[in-house]
């Protein structure tokens, strides 16, 4: 028990270019992210229709809006998150995890994207609460609500969107390149030690998160407009267009390096 299934990158021209960069200039996160985006472009384009990714972003917008309401618990209940007033923050996050998994089960074609979108959502939630100061282990739903209330403005929601898409993008890119990074350790000039491999993966992760900065202006404006028009009842149809835009924008930014 405790098994891990590993994979490798295929021997194709564009993936070979990624492997070469990893071995030669592993600290150049921008160059590796650019080459990876080019190699995986068709797949990255297909993510615009992914229902699980869209659901996770939609849930993030709805939780943020719900935090403005006096009936926070009722609003969460309507989203399928049935909780008590004294539920700790970690209980809330665990409930979100269950909710997303139940949703993803209905459309299993999302595959690995569903898992990465779910992780990105949960990290966006815990980081947002953590930004307010108190430990995640000592906070309850009221703290979470206070944190998200702060983020339900145009400027702050823009940060939240960056956090979510940046994390999703970082996980996606790292899941590809980490199929080869460990194999290059000790076998290439740029990756002499395990410490070097750690720096390489962190450089790509950092670059992906920074790339999502490009979404801020649009995300803030989009949120403000749609929340005002729908009075908080943003639909999954509304977010679908935003997700497609966000992915396209990040992809072109990555390719610019």
């Amino acid at each position, binding site marked *: *028990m*405790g*098994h*891990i*299934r*590993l*994979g*490798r*990158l*295929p*021997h194709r021209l564009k*993936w070979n270019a990624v492997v070469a960069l990893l071995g030669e200039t592993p600290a150049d996160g921008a160059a590796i992210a650019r080459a990876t985006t080019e190699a*995986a472009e068709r*797949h990255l384009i297909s993510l615009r229709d992914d229902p699980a990714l869209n659901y996770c972003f939609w849930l993030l917008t709805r939780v943020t809006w719900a935090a403005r309401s006096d009936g926070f618990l009722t609003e969460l209940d309507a989203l399928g998150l049935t*909780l008590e007033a004294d*539920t700790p*923050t*970690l*209980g*809330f*996050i*665990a409930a979100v*995890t269950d909710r997303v*998994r*139940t949703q993803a*089960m209905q459309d*299993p*074609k999302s*595959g*690995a994207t569903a*898992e990465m979108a*779910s*992780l990105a959502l*949960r*990290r966006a939630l*815990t*980081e947002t609460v*953590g930004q307010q100061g108190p*430990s*995640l*282990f000592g906070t309850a739903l009221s703290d979470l609500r206070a944190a998200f209330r702060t983020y339900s403005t145009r400027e702050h929601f823009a940060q939240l969107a960056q956090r979510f898409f940046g994390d999703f993008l970082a*996980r996606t890119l*790292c*899941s*590809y*390149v*980490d*199929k080869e990074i*460990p*194999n290059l*350790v*000790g*076998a290439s000039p740029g990756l*002499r*030690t*395990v*410490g*070097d*491999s*750690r720096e390489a993966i962190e450089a790509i992760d950092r670059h992906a998160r920074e790339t999502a900065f490009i979404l801020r202006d649009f995300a803030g404006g989009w949120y403000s407009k749609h929340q005002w028009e729908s009075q908080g009842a943003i639909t999954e149809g509304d977010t679908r267009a935003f997700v497609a835009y966000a992915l396209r924008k990040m992809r072109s930014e990555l390719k610019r390096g």
Partner: protein
Amino acid sequence: MKGHVFACEGLSIPSEWSRVPHRHSLDAHNEGKTVTDFRLELPGPVLGNLSPRMRDLVRIASYCFLADESASRGGEADVYLKDWRRQMLMAIPVSDPDFWNASDVSLALRETLNFLTEDGWDFRFEKLVESGTVQMRLVETDAGLHGQPGCVVLFSGGADSLCAALSAHQQDRNPFLVSHRASKAAIGHRRDLLTEVRRRFARQGFRTADAVVSLKGADAKENTQRTRSMLYASLGTAVGIALGIDDIRLADNGIVSVNLPFTDQAIGARASRSTHPKFLLLFRRLAGLVAEADVSVWNPLWNQTRPETFDLLKPLAALDLVSLTHSCAHPRGRARMQPHCGTCSQCIDRRFGTMEAGIEEYDPAEAYEVDIFTQPLLDGEPRTMATSYFRHALRMYDLTEDQMINEYPQLDECLDPSSKTVAEDGLELVRMHQRHAKGVISVMASQIAGHADELARGLLPATCLVSLCAGAEKELEIDRGRRKGLVHGENYESIVFRGKSYALTPVQRPVMRLLNEAWERRDPPMSWGVIRDRTESLSRSMSDMFGKSPLWKRLIVEAGARGVYTLDLP
């Protein structure tokens, strides 16, 4: 996502699934179809009380296991994991189809399997006709029960299940052991281990039930076996209910149970969830519906690292039994004296764990085909597993408790949102991982120190773990900051240790300075050769220099390996 239909025990494929491209028959008797070996060997008292519904649970779990082995999850170069998830459509005969087709039961079954495997599962249950074509053979063994068992322990023959079984024995729970045999490779060593356990602790105790569920005469198309723990848990529950026991223990140490991905490519169930807390939670819900009673299927080691689980063996003086346990993921074709490949995730975790626990004598390097620390790690699984395992520990080592949750959202999936202790449970898991990271790094540091001379002289292979990790010493030094060590005189003519002042001889002073400064910088422990070279000492050994001092073995101690020294400071 590829669809697979499995028609079991001669059932025909339901019409709504007739267009699914991959169709399989799981049937022992019809020539030309997939042949299975499927039998339960149970003591009479268990067999006599095995209810039809519990037989159904075992039958369903067994067919899911056989189906899991029969359908490929794609190859190594499936970069987007398109073939990893499968749609598994199962037509199975059961004694009570109405019960199993009921929406709440079906949903619980599908959710449990979906979490465990990430596959989509759907079922059609039809009435089982008891006839000569029934595959699941129930074989009554002549072993009695030797008293009323107090718990069931799922026993794989690995180190964790040994700890769980002996811990239950020490609690006077008279554990009843349940095993699954998927291959002959596991039979011999498990029998040897059980024989020794019985000889020492209870000649008539540790009664067993065995299940043989495997594809016969055909190699599996898929060897990930994500459904194996469903089979294990189902067998345990069936046996437990038959014996009137509701304490079913499915043990893995907490690190393996949570199985955080130590490489970024291990998404979802690519890192197995065999005893994951969420799986156990989902399975308990299913088992509760089947048994119409609460069934406690739990992991007694859920919050312990591997070295901590070995503490359970100490009161019974059973640490040496670790040498009879096997953990390797690739057991086939291994020599009896070298049962571990050394490079799979289980072997690596076991190796670090036994070294951290200081029980290397019962788990020596010779038992591993590859000694990851000093032998070349080949491209592919060996190097990926070993370097990623250490990199993961490095990453966790620097994280605060809150950062752990941010960096590893997978941890929150281990929590029951409705539990009153959800925050405490989360903290417990985080701290366990922090202890694990610290332990892994201390073992690696000892190995680097212990091989410092060979490293310096370039005698180690470039791709052994010691060579690949040696550069991380610098990283640790930067990240971990400086500690405050001993209170000492200007030239170390005296030091204060545990509130008492000790005078040092001129020969001892440079060595104490070296060790104290290394401890303050969090450098790894040092071998005698390194200490001698750096202090230009003329002494023959550390014991030669400090052996008669009250500080020997109190302040100056060996760290994880013989001849490697550090200071024992808080």
